[in-house]
């Protein structure tokens, strides 16, 4: 096995699944001849042709809208929003149709599709190319929201998302697209939709993150382990919605302390929901305030300052130390 990066892992999964399942179709802006602006769909157009790999007009609402029709007709479309910052144009198709078709038709029509979208900051991109708005989707009943964090879980989660019979928003942390490589295998039973993954077992504190923040979190943890010898439990959320409440709650019951690292703006972010779940089921086990490390409540700054605003290894370390010492 050779090591590959996240783009290669996603691309590999798409190749495998297009090969094995005729119902799978790719659609989006520049996903064909160009292989996608990040090359996630590279080589598919050449292999499967323009009928199954569609360079669409620039029309995000209808990319999802047309895909809904395709999905109802029996296909499994995997569509791309070129950047998550342009996915808000399809919110009404998502909230109003993709998420509701099953319930509206009492199961007569289903929408097995995946919306892939690169998201998040840290790559010196232009305005609108750096947001983390997973909450918009997670606060939408009838939609699943999945965020991989590494080459090895990205491919497996994408496969699970494509095979899921309901609409899945699949957010790809573009900062992690090419930043590291891993050995990638096709069987890891723990990687399924709806399950968080415990990356490290420990009992001093629970540290929760997802997406690109996962890697910085792990680095911060490693530093702190060396510096302080503490023993943290680290959880990679992987599925944002529906959330793996059990894994979170059990861990916090054990550790009594928790830090959550999110790239999204602070208020009404995913961390708030995690805190609410801890409040519901583990409040009396808490020995310290659950700490949030987040972006601020400002429109995502242009790249000249982005790293100052995103959670950093230093900020994570400080938050963990403060929580341990509270």
């Amino acid at each position, binding site marked *: 096995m050779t090591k590959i990066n996240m783009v290669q892992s996603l691309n590999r999964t798409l190749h495998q699944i297009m090969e094995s399942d005729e119902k799978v179709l790719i659609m989006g802006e520049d996903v064909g001849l160009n292989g996608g602006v990040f090359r996630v769909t590279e080589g598919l157009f050449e292999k499967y042709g323009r009928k199954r790999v569609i360079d669409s007009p620039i029309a995000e609402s209808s990319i999802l809208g047309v895909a809904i029709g395709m999905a*109802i007709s029996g296909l499994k479309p995997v569509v791309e929003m070129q950047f998550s910052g342009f996915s808000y144009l399809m919110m009404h198709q998502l909230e109003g149709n993709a998420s509701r078709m099953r319930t509206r038709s009492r199961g007569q029509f289903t929408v097995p599709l995946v919306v892939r979208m690169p998201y998040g900051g840290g790559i010196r991109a232009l305005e609108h190319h750096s947001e983390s708005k997973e909450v918009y989707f997670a606060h939408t009943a009838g939609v699943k929201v999945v965020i991989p964090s590494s080459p090895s879980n990205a491919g497996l989660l994408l496969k699970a998302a494509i095979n899921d019979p309901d609409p899945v928003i699949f957010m790809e942390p573009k900062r992690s697209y090419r930043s590291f490589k891993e050995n990638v295998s096709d069987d890891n039973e723990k990687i399924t939709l709806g399950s968080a993954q415990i990356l490290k077992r420990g009992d001093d504190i629970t540290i929760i993150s997802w997406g690109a923040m996962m890697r910085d979190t792990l680095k911060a943890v490693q530093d702190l382990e060396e510096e302080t010898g503490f023993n943290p439990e680290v959880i990679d959320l992987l599925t944002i919605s529906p959330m793996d409440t059990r894994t979170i709650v059990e861990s916090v019951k054990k550790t009594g302390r928790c830090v959550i690292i999110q790239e999204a703006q602070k208020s009404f972010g995913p961390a708030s929901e995690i805190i609410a779940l801890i409040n519901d089921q583990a409040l009396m086990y808490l020995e310290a305030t659950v700490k949030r490390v987040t972006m601020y409540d400002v429109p995502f700054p242009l790249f000249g300052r982005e790293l100052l605003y995103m959670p950093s290894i230093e900020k994570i370390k400080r938050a963990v130390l403060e929580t341990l010492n509270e």
Partner: protein
Amino acid sequence: MPLNIIEKFSISYMQILDEKGNVDPELEPDLSRDDLLKLYHYMTLSRMVDSRMLNLQRQGRLGTLPACTGQEASFCASVLAIKNTDWFAGSYRELGGRLMRGDSLLNLLYLYNGFEEGSYNYENNRTLPISIILASQLPHAVGLAYGSRLQGEKDTVALVLFGDGSTSEGDFHEALNFAGVLNAPVVFLCQNNQYAISTPRKLQTKSATIAQKAIAYGIPGIQVDGNDVLAVYKSVKDAVTRARNNEGPSLIEAFTYRMLMHTTADDPTRYRDDQEVERWKEKDPLKRFKIFLTNKKLWDDKKQLDLENELKQTIDETVKQFESKNDFKPDAPFDYVFEHPGSTLEEQRMDFLENLKKETEND
């Protein structure tokens, strides 16, 4: 040097059966006796059901309802032009068309009484449920048509209905443009009933016709008399034939009129005068179709009476059946959120049922 004209376009209008019941023999489509009678049957049923449902609504037995009277030619004759294996997507103002597509009246009553169960179409699984987000069903039709073709159905097309107001939405534009590029076999039928709630057609767009919007997408567009069953049927049939032959999508503007209120929550006297409504009564699609059938010796007063009695009886029975049912499962909204709901949702269902139990115990 004068400017160089590089493109020329024109938009035509089609009427075959005029307001007095006269037919243009050159354009008259070849419709069988059975088809003609089926069409008249469903148009009459639609009119009668519409008025009955509005009645039930006034009595508080149904929720907010759209009224469909006056547009029967446009939604019934268009549905007659497609097959059961074709896809049909509408908005909410195509009552008789839905009945022709196998929607049961009983289910429609359940639906308008606020129960999702009414959305299931037991007879046809190629009819999408009612779609309320204006124009959002148009891209679905494109995907349905394209998807079925890709899966080897050489013949399948999609027919999608929507209103004049819906043409202002971005989704209208994106869907027609997308269909053009994909060469998808879709027929877009705009029921231009002159109003979007209170907003008249001329405040919706400055274009002289809706039909000419087809030019923006490089696809055929035509305006037809939407109260003329023959023109609607023929124009849709022509477009369907082109679509079946891989000649791509078309846009049809059916010029018609909403005779009653937008929905039961609406008071049309606030924005239009009675004379306008009276003038449109002259153009009633059922009236002229009846003259046509009578002239063809396919219809007479006795048949009319029999049909009305028969339909009234069916409707009465269905309403009775509707009113006798009150055992909808309270937790049904949990049933179809996901195929694999996961524990959070199942716990919420338990919580819901427990709550319900407590509340019933309290009573």
